[in-house]
């Protein structure tokens, strides 16, 4: 590529941005060459999404300059001009949930029919053509709220490209995707790159950076640290640039003591079924044990977790430390000793308008004072402890969670799960969107919390999460099909998850 001659597709110099007292970005620099896939990495709260906001014209920078192909950025209000230059799949979903795919694709630019009125037929047809042109296997009539994360992203990318932009920003597109979907996404990105599309790719999964990116920019503490070709920056060097010290990452859980076979069972599932998702699962978690549940998106693992937490109707029996838990009621599960971390924080993880303290203590609101009173002092005290324990990057316990960066919001959701001092933790994708170091501390927290007292059921398709587990069970088509003790072989596990292992269905 002779990108050195052509001006960079986008160039940001000295970008600064504050939100009230928080400096989200102090010195953001970025230069993306035509045709490359450029990675942007950094710890949670480093300012990545803020820079994305500035690059897409959503935020106005307090200082600094953005240039597209050498020319100054359009005026802040000129949305059409911005959308021609840059498209973005944001960290939080940006489709209108109640509209169909077709309506979302042509939002604000619906094709007109006779008399200048909207024409549903043409809308459908053109949407179908567009989806086909970008090879997105989704029906235009589907409601946006029924899309899977993968489909939603593809629709957003297709919509963005159809606006004429040839520079696409992907803010943590893989955080909510399973392995197969990530591979499909990467194939798609490579195809599009061949066709001349430039990408800015944000992810906390460093192997992905090496897989599809040519150059990488690292941010730390709101500042630009380094930009280099990925080939010149080893994994360790990259991590060092992100966390600012040379200490390597440790494998959490490698030294966990083995669980004795007569340890008390904190969680026992017998014949648990969820209509439409889970057939009949028998499973138990002992005190001091972390049991991983792996499986594809269609395996029903997530629904199983939701049923244990009381969010879904179920059949069969769930016992926590021997006591039967009433089905379908979250308060019953909570009282019985289940701590739950939902799989998609943006859906049911937190209340964005409420403070860190309130979100983190939501499950124990009854224990923060006498007779149902909530004493702010007690609440903030508890919250401060949790903020320190989980290393949440926030201005303080009173900051609304909606203002936190994605990974820090995730830590607050984790705090909420731990707050009720549960017997068993049910965690779904606990490290989604969390940076490498925080992942270590989050999994470290799970490890530490379950050493002697509790047990944990860790539902995830991230191998890093599953490595912490004492054993991993694999679900396919709503059933448990296999079990692997610590030290499992990666290829075998993945094969079984994808349903092509010996016991596949």
């Amino acid at each position, binding site marked *: 590529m002779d*990108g*050195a001659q052509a001006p960079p597709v986008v160039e940001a*110099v*000295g970008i*600064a941005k*504050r939100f*009230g*007292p*928080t*400096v989200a970005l*102090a*010195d953001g*620099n970025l*230069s993306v060459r035509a045709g490359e896939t450029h990675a942007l990495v950094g710890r949670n709260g480093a300012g990545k999404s803020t820079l994305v906001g500035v690059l897409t014209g959503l935020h106005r920078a*307090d*200082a*600094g*300059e953005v240039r597209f192909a050498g020319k100054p950025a359009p005026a802040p209000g000129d949305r059409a001009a911005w959308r021609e230059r840059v498209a973005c799949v944001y960290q939080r979903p940006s489709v209108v949930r109640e509209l169909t795919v077709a309506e979302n694709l042509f939002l604000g630019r619906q094709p007109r029919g006779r008399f200048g009125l909207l024409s549903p037929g043409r809308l459908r047809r053109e949407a179908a053509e567009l989806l086909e042109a970008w090879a997105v296997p989704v029906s235009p009539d589907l409601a946006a709220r029924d899309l899977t994360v993968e489909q939603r992203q593809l629709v957003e990318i297709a919509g963005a490209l159809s606006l004429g932009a040839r520079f696409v920003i992907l803010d943590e597109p893989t955080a909510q995707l399973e392995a197969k979907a990530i591979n499909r996404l990467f194939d798609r990105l490579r195809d599009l790159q061949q066709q001349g599309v430039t990408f800015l790719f944000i992810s906390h999964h460093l192997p992905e950076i090496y897989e599809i990116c040519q*150059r990488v920019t690292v941010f730390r503490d709101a500042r*630009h640290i*380094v*930009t*280099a*070709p990925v080939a*010149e920056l080893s994994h360790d060097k990259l991590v060092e640039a992100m966390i600012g010290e040379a200490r390597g990452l440790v494998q959490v859980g490698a030294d966990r003591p083995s669980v004795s076979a007569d340890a008390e069972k904190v969680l026992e599932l017998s014949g648990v079924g969820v209509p439409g998702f889970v057939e009949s699962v028998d499973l138990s978690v002992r005190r001091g044990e972390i049991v991983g549940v792996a499986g594809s998106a269609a395996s029903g693992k997530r629904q199983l977790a939701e049923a244990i*937490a009381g*969010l879904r109707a179920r059949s069969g029996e769930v016992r926590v430390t021997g006591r039967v838990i009433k089905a379908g009621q*979250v*308060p019953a599960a909570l009282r019985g000793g289940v701590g*739950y971390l*939902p799989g998609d924080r943006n859906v*049911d*993880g*937190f*209340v*964005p*308008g*409420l403070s860190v303290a*309130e*979100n983190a203590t*939501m*499950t124990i*609101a009854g224990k*923060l*004072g006498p007779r*149902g*009173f*909530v004493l*702010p002092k007690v609440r*903030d005290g508890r919250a*401060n402890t949790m903020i*320190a324990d989980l*290393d*949440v990057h926030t*201005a*303080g*316990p*009173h*900051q609304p969670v909606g203002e936190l960066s994605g990974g820090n919001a995730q830590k607050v959701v984790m705090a*909420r799960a731990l707050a009720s001092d549960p017997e068993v933790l049910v965690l779904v994708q606990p490290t989604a969107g969390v940076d490498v170091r925080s992942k270590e501390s989050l999994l470290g927290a799970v490890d530490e919390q379950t050493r002697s007292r509790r047990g944990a059921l860790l539902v995830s398709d991230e191998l890093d999460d599953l490595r912490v587990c004492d054993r991993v069970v694999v679900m396919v088509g709503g059933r448990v099909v296999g079990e692997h003790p610590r030290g499992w072989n990666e290829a075998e596990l993945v094969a079984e998850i994808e349903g092509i292992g010996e016991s596949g269905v």
Partner: protein
Amino acid sequence: MSPVSESTTVSTEVPTEPEAPARPTPLTGRPANRLRLAKLRDLALIPPIIALLVYGYTLKPDIFLTHSYLVDSVLKYQAVLAMVVLAEALVLIVGKFDLSLESIVGIAPAVAIFLVVGNTSVLGAPWPTWTVLPVALVFGGLIGVFNGLLIVRFKLSAFIVTLAMLIFLRGLQLTLVGGSTISNLAKRVPVIDYLGNVRILTLPLSIWIVVVLFAVGIVVLGYTRVGRSLYAVGGNPDAARAAGIRVERVIWMTLVVAGLLAALAGLMMSAQLASVAANQGEGMIFMVFAAAVIGGISLDGGKGSLFGALCGVVLLGLIRSVLTLAQVAPDQIEAVYGLVILVALVLARLTSGKAQD
């Protein structure tokens, strides 16, 4: 290709070094600052209220700032509105709508008083006069229960359900009161006399009720688990449910409480006039929403404070009386009032710095 040089040059050509050297450290943050900011938002309406008081004083120095004028001409008439705003604020915070409150203001006292003094023998009427208060409250509460049934159980839109309820109750009241007015209630129904005449420390009982209920509401919403759960449910019901809050129950309970408060407001209104008009409460819901929104309650749910809502009520009352004092012609006063409310909304939006979608 010179990627190495680029990696360094990019960082050095910063035009102006931003003044903030480092971000606030995570823990030592500034909770105090935050708190002050949140409080400030609550107090956003205090300056305009003071401004109106001053303006009113310059208009009529001899009467405006006197106790009797402020109490008997401004606040007393806002008491009913304040009660309904309290009710609506709770419903809005929990993320729902209740348009039927204004019809409860009319129907609840109408039913209760009709059973006592009406010219009828249904249900064993006439009932003893002490039943007026409990019957009105129960009636208001039952309407809340029924609204809740449709909204929570049958998952119907709160807007449509309560709109239909509003129309239905209006019709019911017309049938009951018969197009005329149940009048001359003085000295016949004790609770009406109390609400209308009793004064404590020179303030009418109705004002005390408003003050006490708002105080209770502020404490409950701010410092109890049930109160906080209203904000959680209004802010994100899914997250509230996953955190163990009984979302449906909270919504239902709020609708019932709102019905009770509206019924009490209705009795207060009847007491002021010693009668129940066929159209008692009609059109009030617009003022209720105006006051709540000016006071910072979000129509999206999960946001706002009762103190703010109360300020909204006081502000509207002052605007109206200042307009009267300024001798705006009676046939223009509504139009001017509407305009002033629009201006107040814009100001409230600007001073609070938050969008109020």
